[in-house]
């Protein structure tokens, strides 16, 4: 598809007299001068994305959870960007706190996402339609709590992600703009050697002061916590730590 010169005579009928051709050129110039509509409005992108995601879920033999979130139709991340950075349709929080996204889970179909306002609130799983980032082949709780994970306390801290009432989220300015990207999450799981469907919980925080993603997965020998840096993708992931969990 190409943009052509609005005065390109190739587009005109071959059987026009001079006056008619002049009129044709005028109208073509007029039409060509109308402003471009611009990009697809975000709300249209969102509804189309949801529709396509629903189709995808149906194809996969799954019924999407109520209010299930979707992979937004937005420009792909450049490969060098950190896993968690995404531009659009984030679960945005009032007051700037943690971001919590419940990925589509067959076992928690009514819980889709939650946002936590303020710095002291705990991430809660509630229904809502503002969620984004369903993973087609991952399930589990996904948080961006900003929790400072420590080597000595890693297992206990990770276990808290599975608790009915997860621990309070640390204040994390800027976290509101983060988005869990299902594709990137799947890639991250592969990068650290975990199966795509093994995710129980993920949290965006720090590990020994370094930006990290903490993944609680089910492995062959049981649950384990795996910590990787946030630029977690095949070929680039740095596995910072791992430990079996009770």
């Amino acid at each position: 598809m190409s943009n052509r010169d609005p005065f390109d005579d190739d587009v005109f009928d071959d059987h026009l007299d001079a006056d008619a051709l002049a009129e044709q050129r005028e109208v073509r110039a007029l039409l060509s001068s109308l402003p471009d509509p611009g990009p697809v409005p975000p709300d249209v992108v969102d509804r189309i994305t949801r529709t396509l995601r629903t189709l995808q879920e149906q194809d996969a033999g799954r019924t999407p959870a109520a209010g299930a979130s979707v992979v937004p139709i937005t420009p792909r991340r450049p490969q060098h960007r950190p896993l968690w950075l995404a531009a659009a349709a984030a679960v945005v929080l009032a007051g700037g706190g943690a971001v919590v996204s419940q990925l589509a889970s067959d076992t928690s179909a009514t819980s889709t996402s939650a946002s936590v306002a303020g710095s002291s609130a705990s991430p809660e799983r509630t229904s809502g339609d503002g969620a984004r980032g369903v993973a087609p082949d991952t399930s589990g709780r996904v948080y961006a709590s900003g929790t400072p994970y420590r080597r000595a306390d890693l297992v206990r801290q990770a276990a808290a992600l599975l608790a009915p009432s997860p621990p309070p989220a640390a204040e994390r300015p800027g976290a509101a703009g983060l988005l869990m990207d299902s594709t990137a999450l799947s890639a991250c799981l592969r990068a650290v050697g975990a199966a795509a469907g093994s995710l129980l919980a993920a949290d965006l925080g720090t590990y020994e002061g370094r930006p990290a993603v903490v993944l609680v997965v089910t492995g062959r020998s049981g649950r384990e916590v795996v910590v990787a840096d946030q630029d977690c993708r095949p070929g680039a992931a740095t596995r910072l730590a791992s430990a079996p969990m009770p």
Partner: protein
Amino acid sequence: MTSDSDDASDAELLAAHVAGDPDAFAELVRRHQDRLWAVALRTLADREEAADALQDALVSAYRRAGSFRGDAAVTTWLHRIVVNACLDRVRRARARPTVPLPEREPASGRDEHASTEAALDVRAALARLPESQRAALVLVDMHGLSVAEAAAVLEVAEGTVKSRCARGRAALAALLQPDSPAAGPVSGSSAGSGNPATSSDVRPVPGGTPAPPSRVGSEGERA
């Protein structure tokens, strides 16, 4: 789909989607959605109608991807589906009764609005053309496609595209004449209200179609 999809061709993405890649179709949509949206909005001149048409089209493309034979570019195929979705909406809407407009209001005379009003006039006039002419003009004159590309999208001969464009331009010229009896009311319209299907601001053109162009060589479409 891995990050390699950034480099994959449209055809490769479509094939990957057919093969079950969960991300390939979304990537394809990302690449072309703005252009497809422009076609839909320009054809329907109504935001909501355009959104519905685009959604219908993409759903159709998603489901029909397996039937893509590769005899046209994927983007041509996508444009075709979008145009057809738009024209389906136009036809369905024309089957519904329309409400006659009140008499045309006098022009405001405000210079600062002149260009905007002119644009609205053009859009409203475009919306009154037969859908085949409208689609051809949208693709060729507004969207910048070559005649060959538009012919591929519309699945007609290049001569037919030229003929439709010529007739459409001539009809537009007549509609945009200030004193033309065919010039319908366009005042107070907006970009989203030009669709005769959904808007009440379009008065039917006598005879159901715009006056035929007086200086176009042929009434019929040439292939």
